[in-house]
């Protein structure tokens, strides 16, 4: 992470880069996540992937659908515990080609959220440092956020996992998996089900 990356828990707009003040959710009461990784690809290629938000479905492990509405707007529908889902409209509020994309949910979002992704050259031939900042107001407040953390569906983990998968997809062309592999004993049935699911998905 470069030295210029702002610490996650400070939100004094004056001392931070301009884009940071733009992403804050109303009232600055959201939960903030910062996560970064280095990908051995040019910033332009990574930016291009991310700029078409519907591509993000491939790297977000949690079930999500992202529909493109216009060049700057997309509709997000994310499954939530207990057969529920949450939805919002995301709109791009800042777009610096090959450097930065910032977005924010529109009014009426089930989960108010805002985020940026920045692409910065890493030293030497390491590639590009990709930093995601996300802020959101959890429905049900901080208590619900804590519960989500306990059940393992916490957004910070999801962001970390998405970045890891983004890196794998860009550098290796695929995301590592053992879903559907052969196994014995008690794992056998579950793995077979995974495999059948994969085959159905591939066929459809």
């Amino acid at each position, binding site marked *: 992470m470069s030295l210029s990356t702002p610490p996650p828990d400070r939100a004094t707009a004056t001392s931070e880069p301009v884009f940071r003040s733009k992403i804050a959710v109303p009232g600055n009461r959201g939960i903030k996540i910062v996560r970064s990784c280095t990908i051995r690809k040019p910033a332009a290629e990574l930016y291009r992937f991310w700029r078409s938000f519907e591509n993000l479905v491939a790297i977000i492990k949690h079930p999500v659908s992202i529909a493109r509405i216009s060049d700057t707007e997309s509709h997000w529908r994310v499954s939530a515990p207990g057969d529920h889902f949450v939805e919002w409209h995301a709109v791009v509020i800042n777009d610096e080609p090959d450097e930065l994309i910032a977005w924010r949910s529109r009014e009426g979002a089930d989960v108010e959220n805002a985020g940026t992704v920045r692409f910065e050259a890493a030293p030497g031939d390491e590639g590009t440092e990709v930093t995601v900042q996300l802020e959101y107001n959890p429905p049900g407040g901080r208590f619900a956020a804590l519960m989500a953390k306990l059940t393992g569906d916490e957004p910070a983990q999801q962001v970390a996992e998405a970045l890891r998968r983004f890196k794998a997809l860009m550098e290796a062309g695929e995301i590592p998996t*053992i879903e559907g592999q052969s196994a014995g004993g008690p794992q056998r049935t579950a793995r077979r089900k995974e495999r059948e699911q994969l085959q159905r998905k591939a066929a459809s």
Partner: protein
Amino acid sequence: MKAVCWMGKREVEVQEVDDPTILSPGDAIVRITSTAICGSDLHLYDGYMPTMEKGDILGHEFMGEVVEVGPGVKRLKVGDRVVVPFTISCGGCSHCQRQQWSLCDNTNPNAWMAEKLLGYSAAGLFGYSHLTGGYAGGQAQYARVPYADHGPIVIEDDTIPDEQLLFLSDIFPTGYMAAENCDIKPGETIVAVWGCGPVGQFAIRSALLLGAAKVYAIDSVPERLAMAEAAGTIAIHDDEDVLEKLRELTGGRGPDAAIDAVGMEAHGSSYDNLKQALKLETDRPYALRQSMRAVRKGGVLSVPGVYGGFLDKIPFGAAFNKGVTFRMGQTHVQRYMPQLLSLVESGKIDPSFVITHRVPLTRAAEIYEVFTEKRDGCIKVVLDPAA
């Protein structure tokens, strides 16, 4: 197909499981013709590696014939005879580009798990717990080989038998890297090797190939010491005062380089046996401690032996005050395979010397027990999946 499944501590079973299929574009399916049990499999068998799940298919030393390739595979083709490295590597990350194949960023689907324990995740490995990805292993009749363009080496010469090639998958490169890490100057460097199991045997022979002036081999099992002596080393039995003996044999200097080819389950310390049994310590680093004290000032300590977690009573002061250099890690197998294959092809080494037991895969359960108890002169087991 038949596969050797881990079912609990000291419990493996040969089970009938589903044949593997292509799951990712870069996968290949290999019909296994030969597979081996590694000393490091015993850490799993003995229950010292966390994150094993009942039903996991064991094995990371295997070779065979490619029978199917995914749509993304460009280099390998059906019919190729291949040896598969135990390290699963993507070929595209900066570590793979630097030939640090075992440190690949992208092949462990459970990287989050490894990050919690290690800070950062290393490469996925075949059949070596869910911490290293949970990939099904190669003690089976078939295996799915992911990232197939960046691992398996194709064997063109059909006349070389499996037994001479199989160990390119792990223990030969592992022993070789351990020796290479010793900065051997031909005719000058004195190397001491702790542990004369299969990796130790290959470390010994690699050190001699690289020109080590003398190699001392330390173990407590007579047939292993005899095998080390056959290579041209000087054997030291572990019940001697190893430090004194080495001091005496090296003109009071100590060996220039020490290799710990033992790892986390060393014998000889009842303190560690007790602490490990009580779960107060994950590893028994007896050999590591001894080698840290025995190595010469300014020397190198090379560690191919596998360690899993937290070690106790490490004489770090000895290493610090003597300015010892540590070199360690899982082997970058892909880096070494081509050069070691040419050593085999040219007859400079016949790796099959280490094999003591050849048994059908179906007898895996009993042979695991023989191997872990070092009974019956057991040093290296090769399993025949077809028998």
